[in-house]
C-alpha cells in the first residue's frame, strides 16, 4: 500500500503547480480586447497602477513556484521507503528567523512604492476639468458644472451613460449617489471609487488617445447591478468643442405634421413627467420641467435632450447603434474615432430592436421594481422605468421624435 501511494503526491504537486502557474503567470500576457481588461492601461493613472502591480504579481508567482517546488521535492525525497524513524528535531531558530525576515523585507520593498503611487493617485490640486457623476439605481448621470476648465462651460450640461472628456486633460470626477452605494470604475483609465450617498468622492481620470473606454458599477446595488454600465468617450479637444457646442445648442422642434411632431406630443403626455428635454415647451409655450421625484424613488431620470448623440441607452447596457455601426465606432482608429462618434445615431444605424423592446416593456427587459404591490415601502414610487403600455403606433412616433434629438 505504501508503494502505490508514493507516486500519488508527485502528480499532486505537478497538478497543483501547473494550475497555479497557469493562473498567475499567464495572466501577464495581454488579452486581445476584453473591454474592461485591467491590464491594458490607456491613461496616465491606470498606467501608474500597472507599473506598480505587474512586478508584485511577478514576485508572488516566483515565491509560489519556490514553495511548490520545495514541497514537490520534499514529498518525493522523504517519502516513506522503510527508513528508520527520523531524528525528533524540534526546529532551528536561526533558520526560522531568517525565513521570517526575508518575506518581511520583500513586503517592505513592495510597501514603499505603494505609498508613493497611492498619494499621487489621490491628488486633486492639478485638476484641469471637473465632471460630476451621480449614480442611482441602475444608471449613471453625468453633469458638467459651469467652470473654466475643458474649454469653459457657461451653463451646465446634463447627460447620462457616456461621459465625454477631452484627451490629455487631467479630469477630476466628483461622484456621489442618490440612493445606495455604487462604484465608478473605468478599468483602462483608473481604479474604482465607491459612490457613497451623502459623500463626495473624487477620482482622477485621464485618457491619452481618443476612444471608448468601458466600465461597470462594481458595488452590489440591487436588482440590476449587472445592467448599470458606463463608458468614457475621449475626444480630441477640437472634437470635444464641437460636441459641447452641439450639447448646448437649443431645442429644434420637429417639423409640423411629421411623425416626429406626433412623437413630440406622445413624449409630452407620457415621458415628460420624468425625462427632461431642455427647451421643450407645452401647448401654451410654457417650458416643461420634469418632476421625476413624483414617480421615481431616487428622484431623477435620464436627461434626453441629446439622446442620439450618445450610442447607448438604459444604463449604457443596450446600444442605440446596430452591431455593424457599433463596431465601426468601437474599432475606429484613434484618428478617425472622433468623426465616427460625433456622427451620432443615424436613421439607418438605429438599433430598432432593443429600443422598441425597451419602450414596449422596460421592466421585462431590465429587472427593476415596477410591479405596484411591491412599492409599499417606497410609498408608490418606482425604482426604474415603469411599464407604460404604449401602443405600437405611439412607439413609432416616439422613436421618430427621439431620432431628432441629435
Amino acid at each position: 500500500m505504501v508503494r502505490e501511494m508514493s507516486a500519488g503526491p508527485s502528480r499532486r504537486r505537478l497538478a497543483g503547480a501547473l494550475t497555479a502557474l497557469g493562473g498567475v503567470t499567464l495572466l501577464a500576457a495581454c488579452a486581445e480586447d476584453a473591454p474592461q481588461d485591467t491590464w491594458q492601461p490607456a491613461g496616465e493613472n491606470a498606467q501608474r497602477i500597472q507599473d506598480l502591480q505587474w512586478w508584485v504579481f511577478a514576485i508572488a508567482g516566483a515565491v509560489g513556484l519556490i514553495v511548490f517546488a520545495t514541497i514537490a521535492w520534499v514529498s518525493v525525497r522523504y517519502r516513506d521507503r522503510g527508513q528508520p524513524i527520523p531524528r525528533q528535531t524540534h526546529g532551528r531558530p536561526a533558520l526560522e528567523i531568517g525565513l521570517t525576515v526575508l518575506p518581511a523585507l520583500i513586503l517592505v520593498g513592495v510597501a514603499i512604492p505603494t505609498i508613493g503611487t497611492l498619494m499621487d493617485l489621490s491628488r486633486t490640486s492639478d485638476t484641469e476639468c471637473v465632471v460630476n457623476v451621480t449614480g442611482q439605481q441602475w444608471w449613471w448621470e453625468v453633469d458638467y458644472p459651469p467652470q473654466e476648465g475643458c474649454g469653459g462651460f457657461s451653463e451646465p450640461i446634463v447627460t447620462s451613460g457616456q461621459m465625454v472628456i477631452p484627451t490629455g486633460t487631467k479630469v477630476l470626477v466628483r461622484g456621489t449617489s442618490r440612493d445606495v452605494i455604487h462604484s465608478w470604475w473605468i478599468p483602462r483609465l483608473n481604479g474604482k471609487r465607491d459612490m457613497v450617498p451623502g459623500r463626495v468622492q473624487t477620482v482622477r481620470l485621464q485618457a491619452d488617445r481618443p476612444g471608448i473606454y468601458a466600465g461597470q458599477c462594481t458595488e452590489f446595488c440591487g436588482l440590476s447591478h449587472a445592467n448599470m454600465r458606463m463608458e468614457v468617450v475621449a475626444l480630441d479637444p477640437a472634437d470635444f468643442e464641437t460636441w459641447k457646442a452641439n450639447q448646448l445648442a437649443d431645442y429644434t422642434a420637429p417639423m409640423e405634421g411629421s411623425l416626429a411632431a406626433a412623437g413630440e406630443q406622445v413624449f409630452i403626455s407620457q415621458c415628460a413627467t420624468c425625462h427632461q428635454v431642455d427647451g421643450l415647451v407645452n401647448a401654451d409655450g410654457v417650458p416643461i420641467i420634469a418632476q421625476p421625484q413624483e414617480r421615481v424613488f431616487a428622484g431623477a431620470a435620464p436627461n434626453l435632450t441629446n439622446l442620439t448623440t450618445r450610442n447607448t441607452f438604459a444604463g449604457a447596457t443596450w446600444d442605440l447603434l446596430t452591431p455593424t455601426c457599433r463596431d465601426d465606432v468601437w474599432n475606429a482608429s484613434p484618428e478617425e474615432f472622433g468623426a465616427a462618434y460625433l456622427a451620432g445615431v443615424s436613421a439607418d444605424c438605429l438599433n430598432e430592436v432593443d429600443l422598441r423592446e425597451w419602450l414596449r416593456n422596460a421592466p421585462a427587459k431590465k429587472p427593476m421594481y415596477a410591479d405596484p404591490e411591491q412599492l409599499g415601502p417606497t410609498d408608490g414610487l418606482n425604482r426604474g422605468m415603469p411599464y407604460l403600455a404604449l401602443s405600437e403606433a405611439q412607439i413609432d412616433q416616439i422613436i421618430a421624435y427621439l431620432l431628432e434629438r441629435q
Partner: protein
Amino acid sequence: MSDADAPHGATPPAEKTPEHGAPDEGNAPTPDDASAVAEKVDEIPMGGVPEPGPTGEAQRADDSNLLTELPDHAEHRDLHGGHATTTGLSNNKMGMWLFLGSECLLFGGLISTYMLYRGRQADGPGPDQIYDIPFTSVSSFVLLMSSLTMVLAVSSATRNDERNTKLWLTITALLGATFVGGQVYEFTAFYREGMGFTTSLFSSSFFTLTGFHGAHVTIGIIMLMALVGMISRQRVVGDKAEVVELVGLYWHFVDIVWIVIFTLVYLIPA
C-alpha cells in the same frame, strides 16, 4: 428583546466543573490539600519545551523529581471546596470576566455610534437643549452608591453573614430600581419635549445607547432579587459567596460603563 448576552445574564449557573472527585459540596477540603502545589506544576521553566539537542529522555529526567511529591490529582481541591483549576481562578469567575470582556466591545460599539452621530440632530432638539445635567448627575451618584452597597453585600457573603448579605443585596436592587426609575422619567420627559426615538440620528443613537445600558441594569436588578430569593430558600447551588461575587462583578461592570457613558454623553459639551 433581551440583548445578546449569553444566559450568563441570569444568575450564572453555579456550574461545578465535572472534574473528577466527589461532587457533594459537603466534604471539607482535606487538610493536606496544597493548592499551591498545583501552581508549582505550571512554573516548570520554559524548558518544558525541549531545546533542540537534548533528547526526550534527558528532558524527562529532570522533570521526574518534580512530579514525585505531587499528591494524586484526584483529591485536589482549591480553598472554597470547588475543583482545583490550573490557574487557581474558579471556572465561573473566569467565565464571568470573559463575558464582561465581550460586553466592553458591545458598549464600545454603541458609544462610538453615538459619538459619530451626536452632532446630527437634523430638525430635532440638540443635546445641550434637552439634557438635564443636575438630575442625571444625581441618578449617576445613586448608581455609584449601589456599587458601594454591592461591595458590602459581597463582604458579608464572604463572612457567611446571611442576614446582612440579603439586606445589602436588597438595598442594591432598590437603588438600581431608583436609577432605572430616573431613566424612565428622563426618557418620558425627552419624549414630551419633542425628542422621540426616530426624531433624529442623535436621538436614536442616544436612546439605543442609554436604553441598552438601562436593560443591563434591569437584568442586574432581576439577578439581585433572584439571588435574595434563592439565598433565603437555601436554593443556591454551589458556593454561595462566589455566586454573590459574580453578581457583584456584573453590577460593578454595569456601573463603570455608566460612568463612561455619563461623562461622554452628558458632560462633554457637544
